[in-house]
């Protein structure tokens, strides 16, 4: 079963830690500037602390803008066998997110998936136990 979004605040309370105080998303991205578009992948950066997917987005007037979309740490993905080639260059993705406060063509990807609705990395279902270790 695919989980819903875990908000930073909810996760923080559950853990009694400040795990997500590290990154003030509200300073970086503007809740008043939601964006939604499709674009073609030009670069995939599976890096820490956040991954970034670069898209070439064709606007209504026919010009192209380069957007970079912020995502999560890829380490759990690597544990599942994901590599930088898992999202082929040229793939078409659909994004809903919030744009950077400084007006740059940068956004946090609240939802991001292949244009047909397939999730980016897990092909439609939550992945199995990452370690493969048996339950006790």
């Amino acid at each position: 079963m695919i989980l819903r979004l875990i908000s930073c605040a909810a996760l923080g309370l559950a853990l009694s830690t400040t795990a997500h105080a590290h990154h003030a998303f509200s300073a970086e991205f503007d809740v008043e500037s939601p964006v939604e578009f499709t674009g073609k992948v030009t670069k995939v950066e599976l890096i820490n602390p956040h991954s970034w997917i670069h898209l070439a987005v064709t606007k209504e007037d026919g010009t192209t803008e380069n957007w970079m979309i912020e995502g999560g740490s890829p380490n759990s993905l690597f544990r599942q066998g994901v590599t930088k080639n898992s999202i082929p260059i040229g793939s078409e993705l659909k994004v809903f997110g919030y744009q950077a406060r400084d007006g740059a063509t940068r956004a946090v990807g609240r939802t991001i998936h292949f244009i047909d609705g397939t999730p980016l990395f897990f092909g439609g279902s939550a992945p199995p136990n990452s370690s493969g270790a048996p339950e006790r």
Partner: protein
Amino acid sequence: MNASFPYRTLSTIALLSSALAAAADELPRTSWGTPSLQGYYTNATIVPLERPVDLGEREFLTEEEAQARLERAMTVTETQPGTEADVHYQFDDYGMARAQNQTVFSHRSSIITSPKNGRLPPATPEALARGQEIRAWRAEHGFDSAKERSLSERCIIWAHEGPPLLPTGYNNHVQIMESKNHIVIMSEMIHDARVIPIRDSAPTAVLPPQWQGSSWGRWEGDTLVIETTGFSGRVTPTGAAAPMAVDAKVVERISRIDAETLKYEFTVNDPTLWEAPWSGDYVMQAVEGPVFEYACHEGNYGLPNNLSGARAIEAKGGKP
């Protein structure tokens, strides 16, 4: 739904202790005879650091309570578009959600075992005052420059790395490597490797403060006891009001329970922060390696983006 969650069931500490005694002869050992603690582990858990107040001195949840807690931890509220909480990537898109990572299932009500209420001791007035000063400064200057941002946002260190090492929201992997005279404990975030000498007596070299203190270890029977002091004075531990003092002392005890599990116990003593020392313990479970590199600083777009965003807010007459 529960059956699909990748958790392991661990019963009471009493059961674990008897298992330890029975299995002592079967524990893996190094070629020089000490217990082998080496391996890759996760310390992800749904046991909170502090016990909910209404549980009083109760160390264990009932089966029903534990299952309910598990369900709550694995089920989350969807955020609403147009709210601040919605301005975030989706955890399960990246395999970072609780249910997507191996997690220990336990009936324990808290990681903290002492004080008896399973909660951090009261903060000292000094710590509270210092905390207020820091918050007041940050409210005014928190976005002035990179050095005003948090240590984790600057990719310098995450507080959970300690010592004591505590579980955090994700990337809870730990690598332990053992040689005859050293043990390495490496946290995934941010690839910090504590290289701890194993000695007969405390070191005498005078060292400068260190981000994770200076540690030394010794074997007491089959338990590795690590003593650490000489902290940086710049890191605010999880749940503390202000940074941990240079002279704070942390003792860790690590032992092997069975082929798949280590027990990690600790005591923290910082009279500048808390009115009493406090202790806790939890279990680390073996996972497949490797611990993937969490380079952080090298890929830190977020920090300059935050500063740039703050400047944009200021340019419009606002306050970031």
